[in-house]
Every structure is written in structure tokens, then in C-alpha cells.
């Protein structure tokens, strides 16, 4: 069953789809090949209002809801994993925490440029030795008068190569683990911040993934996001929102793989007929469609809860869990449908297969999602 979109949402979906076909589809393969961050695309995304979709207009955003956000995400991801993750990071991981936890001054100064697309944001949580166990992070912030001095290193940070603003999570009370983490809004262009590109990713290869090293970086206390030692909650709630975006990304990648498989099945002929006439292929496609639609519906359900201001943690975890696993499954089968051609870069499903894999890992692994969901069930 397809959820009925209202008039506004149909127009939003149409604009996102037209934009994706016109500006994203033609460069997707090249981005994967060169691993070069799509700088030229940023102003176009900004002009469309895609960089701050659910941020209120007074802070430079489009003032829409999360349903609109996932509609845009799915259309972008349909053609390009890289482009969709950049939009997701800026919207959910950079704008959202400032919107929720920032002071009015912080919103004016930092949120507006991010939501309007004037600046690009990133989310610096993960470290070489702290992924799922983010409470064990080592990046340290020490108070010195009106400022904090940050030292440490983050890795696997999407968009870090091109971002001007970073939401950085630091340990301010190491002995307290999760309960000693503080978040800061950091200017990436200031002295002490250095970025080193991480090459050689399996997929979403032009997403600007990098290590960020902080060496005596001076951050004013006015840039502290939320209360001291209360940053863990900010990280968790931000990731809750982020995983809805990733679920939509996974749905989009899956849909792309399915659509291309449908096309291929009607064109490729073996044994005197299109392979789509054979039940094996038909069953692959049927299974793809079911999984994709279910993932989409869970994602939309998470959105409607969030938009109503209700608790959506469980739903967003379920959506991301299902959508991520669906993306892996669907793209894998898509390669199979394409046979030898699915193994070669000339056909898009090869890229979709590699792009899909990360959706089960980042912004909370599938296992973490299961921890969240079972906690809800068992209390």
C-alpha cells in the first residue's frame, strides 16, 4: 500500500526527482570513479532548499517536515549514494542538533548558514577506538577561562574535507564515560584543525570522508552546544533523526537497483525470450519490491511520529535496520539479475551494491538498532 502524498508532498517529490535526474544522475558514476567531493553540486542543492529541509524558515531552512525530507532523500539516493549522504549529514547531523539544543545566538550564527547551504556541516563523533562504544572517546576538551581547548582525533567523518562547521563530541570528564561528554560547534577553518582524506572506501566514495585532528583548538564557551557533560544525549537524539535519513537513503539505493533490474529483465534476452519471463527473475523482483515498500513504510511511520513530536526512537531504529538490510539484499540480487554485467562498472548496480553496504553500519550499526528495539520490547 502506497501512502498517499498530499499536493505539496507530490510537488516536493517531483522536484527532487527532476533535480536528481538532471543534476545528480549524470555525475554519479564519475563521483564514484574520481572520489572527488561534488563541490559544484552544493550551490544547486542549496538553491533548491535541500540543505535545511526541516529547519524553520527563520533560520534559513525550508520549514518543512521529516516526510518531505525523506521524499527528497529517496529521490537523490535513487541515483547517487554520495549526494544523498551529504544532504543527510547536513540536515540531520549538523542542522538538527543546533536546532534542538542550540541557544538563540547559536541558531542565528551557525544554523542559518548551514540550513541555507551557505556552509556545509559535519558530525564528529567516531574515533579510531570508539565506534558503537562512543562513550569511550578520547578527544578531550579542557576549560581555560572563557574557552575550551580541544585535543584529539576523529575518523570516518563524512563531509569533513569540505565542511566549515563541525559538531564535535569531546570527553570533558573521562571517568564518567557517557555522562562526561560535551558537544561543541567548531569552526573547521580555524588553526589547529587539520583534515586528512580517507581514500579507498568501498562505496559512497566522494562523500568527503576524513580524519579530523584537533591540536590545541581554541573553542569559545559560547560555542558549547548544550550543557557540560550532557553531550551524550545530544549525540543519541541526533543519531535518532539521522537514521531516518539513512533509512531513506537505503530505500532510494534499493529502488534504483530494483528499477534497473526491471529494465534489464525486459531487455536482456536468453533462450529466446527476455529474462523477465523466467520465474527465478520474477521472484527476485517481487521480493525486492516487497522489502523496499516495507522499508519505505517504516521510514514514513518514523517521520510521522517525529513530525507530531512523539517518541520515534524505536521506529527510526526499526526503519534503519530494515532498510539497511534491504539495501544489501536488494543490491545483491540486482547484481545477480544482471549476471556478468552486474559485476562491471558499466552497469550502475555494481556501484549500488557497494554504496548500499554502509547503510547497515553507519549512524548506528544494525546491531545497535537491535539493542534499541529489544530494549523497547523488554523494558
Amino acid at each position, binding site marked *: 500500500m502506497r501512502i498517499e502524498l498530499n*499536493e*505539496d508532498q*507530490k*510537488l*516536493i517529490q*517531483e*522536484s527532487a526527482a*527532476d*533535480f536528481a535526474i*538532471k543534476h545528480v544522475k549524470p555525475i554519479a558514476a564519475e563521483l564514484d570513479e574520481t572520489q572527488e567531493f561534488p563541490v559544484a553540486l552544493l550551490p544547486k542543492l542549496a*538553491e*533548491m*532548499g*535541500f540543505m535545511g*529541509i526541516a529547519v524553520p524558515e527563520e533560520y534559513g531552512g*525550508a*520549514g*518543512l517536515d521529516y516526510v*518531505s525530507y525523506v521524499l527528497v532523500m529517496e529521490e537523490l539516493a535513487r541515483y547517487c549514494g554520495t549526494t544523498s549522504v551529504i544532504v543527510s549529514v547536513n540536515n540531520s547531523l549538523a542542522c538538527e542538533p543546533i536546532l534542538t539544543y542550540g541557544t538563540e545566538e547559536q541558531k542565528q550564527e551557525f544554523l542559518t548558514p548551514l540550513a541555507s547551504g551557505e556552509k556545509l556541516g559535519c558530525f564528529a563523533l567516531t574515533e579510531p577506538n570508539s565506534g558503537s562504544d562512543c562513550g569511550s572517546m578520547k578527544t578531550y576538551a579542557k576549560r581555560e577561562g572563557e574557552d575550551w581547548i580541544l585535543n584529539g582525533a576523529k575518523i570516518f567523518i563524512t563531509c569533513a574535507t569540505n565542511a566549515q562547521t563541525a559538531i564535535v563530541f569531546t570527553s570533558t570528564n573521562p571517568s564518567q564515560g557517557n555522562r562526561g561528554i560535551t558537544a561543541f560547534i567548531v569552526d573547521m577553518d580555524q588553526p589547529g584543525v587539520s583534515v586528512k582524506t580517507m581514500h579507498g572506501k568501498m562505496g559512497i566514495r566522494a562523500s568527503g570522508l576524513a580524519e579530523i585532528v584537533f591540536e590545541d583548538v581554541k573553542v569559545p564557551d559560547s560555542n558549547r552546544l548544550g550543557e557540560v557533560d550532557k553531550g551524550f544525549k545530544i549525540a543519541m537524539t541526533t543519531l535518532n533523526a539521522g537514521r531516518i535519513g539513512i533509512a531513506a537513503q537505503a530505500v532510494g539505493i534499493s529502488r534504483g537497483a530494483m528499477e534497473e533490474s526491471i529494465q534489464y529483465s525486459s531487455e536482456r534476452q536468453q533462450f529466446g525470450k527476455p529474462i523477465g519471463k523466467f520465474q527465478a527473475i520474477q521472484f527476485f523482483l517481487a521480493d525486492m519490491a516487497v522489502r523496499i515498500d516495507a522499508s519505505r513504510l517504516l521510514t514514513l511511520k518514523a517521520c510521522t511520529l517525529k513530525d507530531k513530536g512523539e517518541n520515534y526512537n524505536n521506529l527510526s531504529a526499526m526503519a534503519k535496520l530494515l532498510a539497511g538490510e534491504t539495501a544489501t539484499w536488494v543490491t545483491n540480487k540486482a547484481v545477480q539479475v544482471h549476471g556478468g554485467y552486474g559485476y562491471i562498472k558499466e552497469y550502475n548496480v555494481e556501484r549500488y551494491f557497494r554504496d548500499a553496504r554502509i547503510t547497515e553500519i553507519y549512524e548506528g550499526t544494525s546491531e545497535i538498532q537491535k539493542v534499541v528495539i529489544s530494549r523497547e520490547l523488554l523494558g
Partner: protein
Amino acid sequence: MKIYVCCKHVPDVAMPFQIKEGRLLSEDLNYVLNAYDASSVEAALVLKETHEAEVSLVLIGPDKGKEALRKGLAMGADNAYHICDAAFEGSDSHAYAQILFQFFSDREYDFILCGKQSQDMDMGLTGGMLAQKLSIPYVTNAVGLEVDSEAKSLTVKRQGDLGAEMVQTPFPSIVTCSNDMNDPRIPSLKGIMTSKKKPMEVIDLAGLGLEESQVGSSGSSSAIVSWSLPPERQAGLKLEGDPEEIVTQLMEKLTTEAKVL
């Protein structure tokens, strides 16, 4: 400047459709703003960027036709008129021209743009007929448009049989637009949301001062009696392999089998 753009809501011809028992199954089709009209809207909006202009959209169609108007408003048009009445169903170009004539006959405008044809009917009559009825000049198949608001004239680059032609026409005129003219802008999220607040007036049969006999099937001079699919061309021989060999094979076929050389 006061610019009107005539729009139509048509099935998306890029998507598959079905014809059964001589009828187009239109219920399941996705309808869009006619591509040629979208180019006309874009042309008007481009002029609006450099001239003071009000861009108004006009559409004849059932209730869902308002989606096309919303799209045009989201692109940046200022207001819209939805000419809507069950009586209009079954209208051909002649009836449409009559309805539009009635709409424009007591309105002020500098020029009217419309798509050179609609993607569904591919007829291309309405624009020129409307101009003739209004006794104003018209130029068709525009691929470029410039305005001199001081001199109150349009310079149209049109595609003719011999090549591109530059034709000047004074206010008021009708220009029908080719989609080769431009690449219509994609409405931004802001454009979509502000379009909700822009005025859209609905006008019915009585509002235009028309009789039922003048519109719909009664007001039309022709009617589609059935739909069919064009004769399918069968895929022929596919030659692969060494270029020299396949060229030799082709030449043989063209001379002995097809006998075209």
C-alpha cells in the same frame, strides 16, 4: 508587463500507457504540466527577471488540472485562473479556443504565451486560433524570445522550414513556444510552499458567459472515435563481430534483399 501563459494538464507521455478496446486507459496515468507550456512559463519567468512583469497562468481542465497550475506557481508565476466545468469535457481545439477567447476578450494583457502543441494531442491549433479570434498577431514555434517593453514589441526567434527566422511582433500578440526554447526550472522547496498562498481563481461555464452548446462535444467540430497503437516495427537482423565482415553482409542485404542500393 502583463503576461498570460496558457497551460494544459496532460498525461506524461514518457510513461507507458494502455489502449484497450479502442480506448485510452487514462485513469491510471500520471498527469503533468504540458512540457511545451512549461517552456512557456519558463520563458515568461526569464522575462520577469529583467522586466517588471506579472505572470498569470490559465488552464482549462477538470479539478486535478490545478496541479499543473500549482507547478507553474511553484516555478514562480504570480497567479492562476482555473477554467473548470464538467461541460468542457470532450472539447477539441476549436472549443478550447472559443473558451479561451471568452476568457481573454475582456482582459488586458501585453502578450500571451502558450506551448506550440500539447503532448497528448499534438494538434497545435489552439494558440493560433485564439489569436485569430482575438484579432491579434501570432507567431508559432518560438525557440527564443526577447521583449522591448518600451517599444512594446516582442522579437521572436522561430524555427521555420528554411532555418531560424527572426520575427518582430507588437503588443498584444500570441507566441507559441517550442520546448527547444529553454530548460524549465525545477521548483525549489520555497517555491512550492509559497505557491500555496498565490491566488487561484476558479471560473465555470456561467462565469465565462458561455452556453453548453458552445463547449464540450457540442462545441467541437471533430471527435476522436477510437485509439489504437501504431503498427509495430519488428526488430530485424542484428550483425555483430568483425567490422569488415558485417559491413560486407550489410551491403549484400541492402542490394539484394532490401534493394535500396
